[in-house]
């Protein structure tokens, strides 16, 4: 059990950054392997969010893998459930369940449902998939905790969201309520990768100026490079230090990060490796290329698996 008193978020050392970078790469490899075995699922979002999930599960969150229901844990709500491969992979690599189980993704009777479902994996904070509902639930959790523990409780409530789901009205209902209630323990992380299924976000439904929108709802706003561990951790630290209102971290991420042919391409939003897409590598080569790039860090090192 973690010590409750000292819940300060420590800054990263160079060694820790290197450790996190390697973990994130292992998690990306697992994501590709899971998607290939499943034969369906989302690629771009999970790869793009691998660094942020790694930072949370290996540094930021106060949690206990051996006691997932520890009442004093921080809560992490995944709102955009379709990026669950990154949630599952990060949880497995951090010790919640065996890494081998990741290959059951989307299979009949698997704990790793196509979109997260607590019936099958009770250690999840919520079931999700339909977009726009996660922030409301995180707001509810933070409100309940404030009723019990006042404004200086120990827990933080994190909500991972996509930029595309900000199209939904319910997201703004939750944003408005969090601002009204001045929920200082609530920190939303928006995966600002600029893609959604039908195309680029600013063509489908423009969100900019996104930071201004949040500010006008009385939120504290951080904008960061979502692949820079030092920035991720220091932004969360600053958000934690904001006492009298909710914070949002708008994390600029590269969808498909780490796999060259997927990066910045909305066509990989909802497709797994092994999908016939015009102009992309042949579907039989995609997984091989993706794994090769990840294992060699884009050719920087020689893969030990080859």
């Amino acid at each position: 059990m973690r010590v409750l008193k000292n819940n300060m978020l420590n800054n990263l050392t160079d060694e820790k950054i290197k450790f996190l970078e390697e973990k994130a790469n292992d998690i990306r490899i697992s994501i590709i392997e899971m998607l290939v075995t499943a034969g369906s699922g989302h690629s771009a979002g999970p790869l793009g969010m691998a660094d942020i999930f790694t930072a949370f599960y290996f540094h930021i969150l106060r949690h206990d893998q051996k006691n997932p229901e520890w009442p004093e844990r921080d809560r992490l709500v995944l709102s955009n459930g379709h990026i669950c491969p990154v949630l599952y992979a990060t949880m497995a690599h951090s010790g919640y369940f065996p890494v081998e189980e990741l290959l059951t993704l989307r299979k009949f009777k698997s704990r790793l449902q196509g979109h997260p479902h607590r019936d099958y994996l009770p250690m999840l904070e919520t079931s999700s998939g339909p977009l726009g509902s996660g922030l409301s639930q995180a707001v509810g959790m933070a409100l309940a905790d404030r009723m019990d523990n006042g404004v200086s409780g120990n827990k933080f409530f994190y909500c991972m969201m996509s930029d595309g789901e900000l199209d939904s009205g319910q997201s703004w209902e939750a944003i408005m309520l969090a601002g009204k209630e001045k929920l200082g323990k609530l920190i939303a992380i928006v995966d600002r990768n600029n893609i959604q299924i039908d195309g680029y976000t600013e063509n489908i439904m423009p969100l900019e100026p996104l930071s201004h929108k949040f500010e006008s709802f009385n939120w504290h706003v951080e904008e960061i490079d979502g692949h820079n561990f030092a920035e991720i951790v220091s932004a969360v630290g600053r958000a934690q230090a904001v006492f009298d209102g909710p914070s949002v971290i708008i994390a600029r991420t590269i969808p498909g990060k780490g796999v060259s042919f997927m990066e910045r391409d909305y066509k990989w939003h909802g497709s797994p490796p092994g999908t016939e897409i015009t102009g992309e590598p042949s579907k039989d080569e995609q997984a091989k290329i993706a794994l090769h790039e990840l294992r060699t860090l884009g050719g920087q090192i020689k893969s030990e698996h080859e």
Partner: protein
Amino acid sequence: MNKMLNQSQKLNPKLWDKDIEQVPIRNGFGEGLLQAGEKNKNVVGLCADLTESTQMHLFKNKFSERFIELGVAEQNLASVASGMAAMGKIPFISSYAMFSPGRNWEQIRTTICYNNRHVVIAGSHAGVSVGPDGGTHQAVEDIAITRVIPRMTVISPCDYIEARKATIAAAELGGPVYIRLAREKTPVITTDETPFEVGKAQLCYGGVASVADVGIISTGALVYKALKVAEQLKSENISVKVLNISTIKPLDVEAIVNLAKTTGAIVTVEEHQISGGLGSAVAEVTTQGNPVPIEFVGVRDLFGQSGTPDELLEHYGMGESHIWASCKKVIGRK
């Protein structure tokens, strides 16, 4: 005292009086929530800008620190409640039935039911008896859309006393609960002593074991009209049994099948679309347990409109004359 009334139900002795006390069913929710809140400090109230109208103000006034006002945002209402339930609270959310569970059905399905959270959804202003507000505010589809969701308990009280008991009971159930409430003043047919148990139907008229010519199965405020029709038919030497279905899900299958066996003909009476509501639920179980002819009294695939409650109940075929005619018709089909 009327001999045909089921004495074990301890119904209002003034049931047949012209000046029978009338109280809105929603008032029972307000009083029940206040009592549930006094009993359990985890009970919290959430409302979407209809606090007084749904009678949640009684709870708000006493427990302001356990009340959250969300504004006109019913989707947020459902999901915030889910998040609070995840932290051990017992949220009661209230609005008009048309907006919750109407507007926020998917949030109720996914964030409350799929997550198996103990949230109580109170939908006020159900039925056409909402009156002058018109069709946009008259929920006649809410039973159908709630009972179809796995895990959901659906309660439809017949008067304000039953609504109070249902609200207190809902705080002690697990999982999601929907309580259907009506706006208008409704005759008080039960008493504090009337037995109430979630999942149990109450036979109000006729004996449990006795046979009769027809059985009426009703829910909500129309139970009173069903009882009046039973009394009218008795004077015509037609014997009737009346079953009050206060819990629509889980349905008291045994009581319904027993009614089908002892009467051989059923009329269902509800202030709701006949498709998907109480009548459909009854047909689902009788066709399997003991098939008998059924006539359905309810709204027939139409929207409501402005008018007085009585004008609307007559117009949409839910008046006493319609129940009476359906009883005659179903007996003829035996």
